[in-house]
């Protein structure tokens, strides 16, 4: 493990999530820094998405503390209701299987993401019903923010399309834009490059770098595409069977023997505990005997 320098944004301490007898996430601790891309990698079933669901309030963790540091005080995410995690703590997320509002237009998707801001501006719809100028101004600002993100994800042309009719790659980009429209301090992306072709994942890397450099927020990224992970992350956390097995800079993780073992397996001899190895000749004999 190597320490990665930075200002802590999200501290995960002893996070454990049990489903009955299954321990999906087992005592994981790490810190994600401000203005850094933190990648969480690991083989399938390592507990990455479960950890995301704990972070964003869809599961409440069995054990552990999740602290988000931002202005307005540290937020203990494990104690917040799911919707408040986005509303107050400013953690936005995307989903592994895209969850857009498929029958609404692209622009509407981005405006819905600014719901809380607009709700306040419309005085909980009273000012909106009366068509007061204060609300109309707020809506115009919301559209401007949406337009900014549409430009960033190259979807301006499709703004008035039904979101469900967009091609797959565009839907992924739209979901990221929608999450960014909530104006978060931490963006959690669950396999954003899944199903993208090499050119599209190149664009995605650029977009994530833009988010880190220009929007100055932290990104938490689950990804299997190592070319994306290794080229843009500042910090990589590796999970395997719910445990953290490595944590550090991409260069460190890439050469960490535990990581290589988790991904590529190990030679058969090493896998067997010594007492089994002792018994082996005996077992072989017994099988030959009859």
């Amino acid at each position: 493990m190597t320490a990665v320098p930075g200002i802590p944004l999200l501290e995960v301490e002893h996070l454990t999530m049990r489903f009955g007898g299954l321990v999906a996430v087992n005592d994981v601790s790490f810190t994600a820094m401000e203005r850094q891309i933190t990648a969480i990698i690991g083989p399938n079933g390592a507990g990455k998405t479960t950890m995301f669901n704990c972070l964003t309030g869809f599961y409440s963790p069995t054990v552990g503390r999740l602290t988000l540091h931002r202005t307005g005080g540290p937020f203990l995410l494990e104690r917040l209701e799911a919707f408040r995690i986005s509303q107050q703590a400013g953690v936005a997320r995307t989903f592994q299987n895209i969850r857009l509002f498929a029958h609404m237009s692209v622009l509407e998707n981005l405006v819905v993401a600014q719901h809380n801001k607009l709700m306040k501006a419309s005085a909980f719809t009273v000012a909106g019903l009366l068509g007061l100028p204060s609300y109309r101004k707020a809506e115009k600002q919301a559209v401007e923010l949406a337009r900014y993100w549409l430009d960033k994800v190259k979807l301006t042309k499709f703004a008035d399309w039904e979101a469900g009719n967009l091609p797959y790659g565009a839907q992924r980009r739209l979901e990221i834009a929608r999450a960014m429209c909530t104006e978060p301090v931490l963006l959690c992306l669950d396999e954003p490059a899944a199903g993208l072709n090499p050119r599209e994942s190149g664009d995605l890397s650029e977009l994530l770098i833009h988010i880190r450099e220009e929007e100055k927020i932290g990104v938490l990224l689950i990804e299997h595409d190592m070319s994306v992970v290794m080229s843009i992350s500042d910090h990589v956390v590796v999970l395997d069977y719910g445990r953290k097995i490595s944590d550090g800079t991409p260069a460190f993780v890439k050469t960490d023997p535990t990581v290589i073992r988790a991904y590529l397996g190990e030679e058969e001899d090493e896998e067997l505990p010594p007492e089994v190895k002792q018994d082996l000749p005996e077992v072989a004999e017994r099988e030959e005997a009859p």
Partner: protein
Amino acid sequence: MTAIASHANARPGLNVGAMLKEAGLTALVALALTFPLVGLRTVDVGSRLTITTRFDEVLISVLLVFVGRIGLILTREGHALPVLVVSLVVAVAAWFAPLPSEILRVITIAGAAVLAIRAVIAVRRDRSTLSQQERDRAMDRLGARVQDAAMWIGPIAVVFAIALPFMPFASRSVVDIGILILTYIMLGWGLNIVVGLAGLLDLGYVAFYAVGAYSYALLAHYFGFSFWLCLPLAGLLAAFSGLVLGFPVLRLRGDYFAIVTLGFGEIIRVVLLNWAVFTGGPNGISGIPRPSFFGIADFDRRPPEGEIAFHQLFGIAFDPMHRIIFLYYLILVLALLVNFFTMRIRKLPLGRAWEALREDDIACTSLGINRTNIKLAAFTIAAMFGGFAGSFFATRQGFISPESFTFIESAIILAIVVLGGMGSQIGVVVAALIVIGLPEAFRELAEYRMLTFGMGMVLIMVWRPRGLLAHRDPTILLHPRRSARQQQADSEAGA
């Protein structure tokens, strides 16, 4: 439909044996059903109950089913045109032929008509070279065009509605039907907020209609409050009951939500039925005061001492129609109010959140939207409109009882919303005209008029499974000059 699938591999040769077998089996099922239902009849003879038989009618029904099935099979196998001709001839013949009973005549005509419609659909399908998908898309374009046309159809419809009571054909019964249809349009628009926008299947909407009606009736009965005071109160009380019912219910989803709302609808009715001391129980409440002309004048021929009547106020001759026309305008204004509200709120954050909730509630949570509050708002607002409609119903009828608020009412209102196309405002109007207007127009058919109701529903579901006008326009556009649809069509053509 299976007919479409089997049509694809229809062979030119006709297997008569298989056809007769299928028709025979259907006739057997018909026999099993009609024998006890039609064949046996209990009759009061003196003080005793005896059973008479009507086997001739059973025989004719079974024969009709047999022939009808053969017609359907022929249609399916690609002989739709002859079937169409024969069924039309049968329908006309049944009108004049001396059949043993009136029921048989109606059944024969209705059966022949359904078969004819089925054949027409098949003929058109065979003639057209379009695939099913292309047809669906064409229907969606039609829906979109109607939506565009709503720009001018809407105002024209409103002008027509305003002018209706003064049309030459506007007899008392026409205006009465107008009031009835407008009541259901208002209820449909109200329920559309919950079902069409927020996507919550509410099977107990009639509960709020009942709360509104009873609020006015009881307030007038016990405290003598006037209609104009009670209208907002009834809306408030219904909204409050929506809020109270909403809290426990809204944590549920999908089917569970639907079942619980169904239960609440029944609870309200059963309470009204059994709390006889307060609500009058099954006897209902009668003598509910009629609305005055904004509290200024009554619509009576001879007003009480010291008060002035409507006809005296305007110096015109007394006419009982004045009250009816006033009620008509009252419900028109109330319904338009609901419509205006819905059109407006669709473009506000609350309305957009409702639609987002219908699309994906998990994504809503991840965007920081408080689902409970949003759902509660939809439920409460819809309940309030139900309450307004209910108090109008009470004042129009002058008498209410729990009988008026059974589940079938909820089902009819829901049918209007679903048939019209979920979330479509003009669809609700069209569906209400069909669902309420058709049975009223066919009132001469007496008890068979529900047949037209059923036929209308079946037709719409065959023709447009997603509802008549299921097309949604975005509530906000980035490129307003060219319509989004045009753009999408362009890019589809380019792709």
